[in-house]
């Protein structure tokens, strides 16, 4: 490695530690970039070892971009409240912009979140399916919003890839009906208690779950050859 490269990496890592990840991402040369990334991880580990006071933004966990201080405290408030009311329902104690929950009591918790006067999450904004990658778990992410208090939280529920099941909240928020059907359609996650768990966007007899990372398109559909997607889009 030339001196110039070392200097470049040092500068980029210093910038990245200050929060500017672009400094590393902007390095043109691929090898230098990856070296800079490795140096960054090392620097972070060192910083953690020397200063026991943890900075939450340094964790390698996926971080929520929208982390206004008020919102964060709301997530924590909700998590603390749920911990008290429904013990053992949270997957992780620490709240990092979202609440990681177990699926078990989700229906009751959803009702509680909707009706509790402190939270009043009367609107289910969005339901997003998520795939951690081939062979890994699936996840459902709920974005809740309160019309009265004008605040939002995100709730995530992990589920097993081979037998993905999450309780349905169709009866709590009526839009859950279509959102859950869409998630089922794309990820094959079954929502227990849903009154009409069928595909919504794809044809009923379509095979496979399109948005899973290991999805392979079926070869023919009713005698029509499904065109293969070539590697590397232009």
């Amino acid at each position, binding site marked *: 490695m030339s001196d110039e490269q070392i200097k470049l990496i040092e500068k980029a890592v210093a910038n990245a530690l200050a929060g500017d990840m672009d400094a590393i991402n902007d390095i043109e040369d691929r090898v230098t970039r990856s070296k800079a990334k490795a140096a960054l991880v090392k620097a972070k580990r060192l910083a953690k070892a020397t200063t026991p006071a943890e900075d939450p933004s340094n964790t390698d966990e996926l971080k929520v971009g*929208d982390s206004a201080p008020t919102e964060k405290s709301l997530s924590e408030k909700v998590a603390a409240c749920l911990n008290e009311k429904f013990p053992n329902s949270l997957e992780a104690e620490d709240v990092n912009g979202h609440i990681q929950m177990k699926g078990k009591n989700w229906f009751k918790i959803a009702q509680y979140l909707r009706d509790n006067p402190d939270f009043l999450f009367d609107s289910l904004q969005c339901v997003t399916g998520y795939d951690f990658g081939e062979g890994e778990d699936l996840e459902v992410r709920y974005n809740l919003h309160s019309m009265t208090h004008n605040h939002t939280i995100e709730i995530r529920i992990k589920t097993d890839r081979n037998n993905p099941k999450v309780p349905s909240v169709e009866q709590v928020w009526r839009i859950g009906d279509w959102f859950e059907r869409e998630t089922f359609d794309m990820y094959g996650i079954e929502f227990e208690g849903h009154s009409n768990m069928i595909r919504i966007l794809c044809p009923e007899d379509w095979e496979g779950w399109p948005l899973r990372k290991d999805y392979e398109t079926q070869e023919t559909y009713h005698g029509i050859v499904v065109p293969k997607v070539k590697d590397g889009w232009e």
Partner: protein
Amino acid sequence: MGVVHGDLMTLNIGPQHPSTHGVLRLKVKTDGEIISEVEPIIGYLHRCFEKHCENVTYEQVIPYTDRCDYIAAMNNNFGYAVTVEELMEIKVPERVEYIRVIVAELNRIASHLLALGAYGLDVGAFTPFLYMFRDRERILDLFETLCGARLLYNYIWVGGVSHDLPPGFIGAVYSFLDYFEPKIEEYNELLTYNKIFIERTGDVGVMPPEVAVSYGVTGPNLRGSGVKWDIRKDEPYSIYDKFDFDIPVGAGEMGTVGDCWDRYYVRMVEMKESVKITRQALKGIPAGDVHQALPKKIRPPQGSIYKRTESPRGDLAYYIVSDGSPIPYRLKMRSPAFTALSVLSEISQGWMMSDVLAILGSLDIVLGEIDR
């Protein structure tokens, strides 16, 4: 005497039908002329938007967003750009923000003109449609001088816009607004207060506010039910907090709060508010370079974001998960028309066959966005 129930008859409307606003099939169960159940069947226009996004770079997603809601493509570009910018923490120049607001509000007017004109068609008034299309055409002409495209613009980019305003654009918008504002009164005389139109829409398809909220209905449809909720005001993005405008809500002037007429009228008044915003933006637009903040590479840091913006149809949100590469790991679009269509079954029960089409039209759906 009890109520006499006949056998239910199943009737198919669509997928190809002028009043379904696209390729939508309605499976209607009727008892004589009275509707007992409507099941919308969607997916005829499904183009795997979200799957495509996982295979193209962040820049390449923008033309796809155009094609989701093809009536208000500027607003779709806008929402996407704002979301990615927040994820990358890009601050765009002031001039870009003003240009974006101007084109987004013009596009909102164009979208509402189409919605209102087509709604007139749905309930049997042909003439207003022609008047509204005449004026919508002027907005499309403005956009053509702006970026060369009339419907699918690819104009608002992450970190900026594709072209600066062409010479004379601001003057042209001013003269359009001067021309357009009195026309709203003309539409009112022509359609809004027409007796037949009121008979067809007033008190029909009432959507109570709690039903609307539970179904996730947003935008003019929600405001028609009397709920004062607009992201431009309640959770301002871009520079909407700088402008002075009102949020019109339904008041039940021609029947009950939340009927078809209210949803229609909210859109009509909203056009006035858009004119107001556009005028303020034209007045305050600063000079500057629109390409200054364009990132060389769009490679957001690891993380996820859920960001909402106000499209003419309601809360348009993008949920983006980035793994630090130039290609989105997961991109979900929360489409306002999707939620609006889901409420159709609930609010059209008990109405006549012809009312279902009036209710469907009042929800102002765009199938491209529902099926994605």
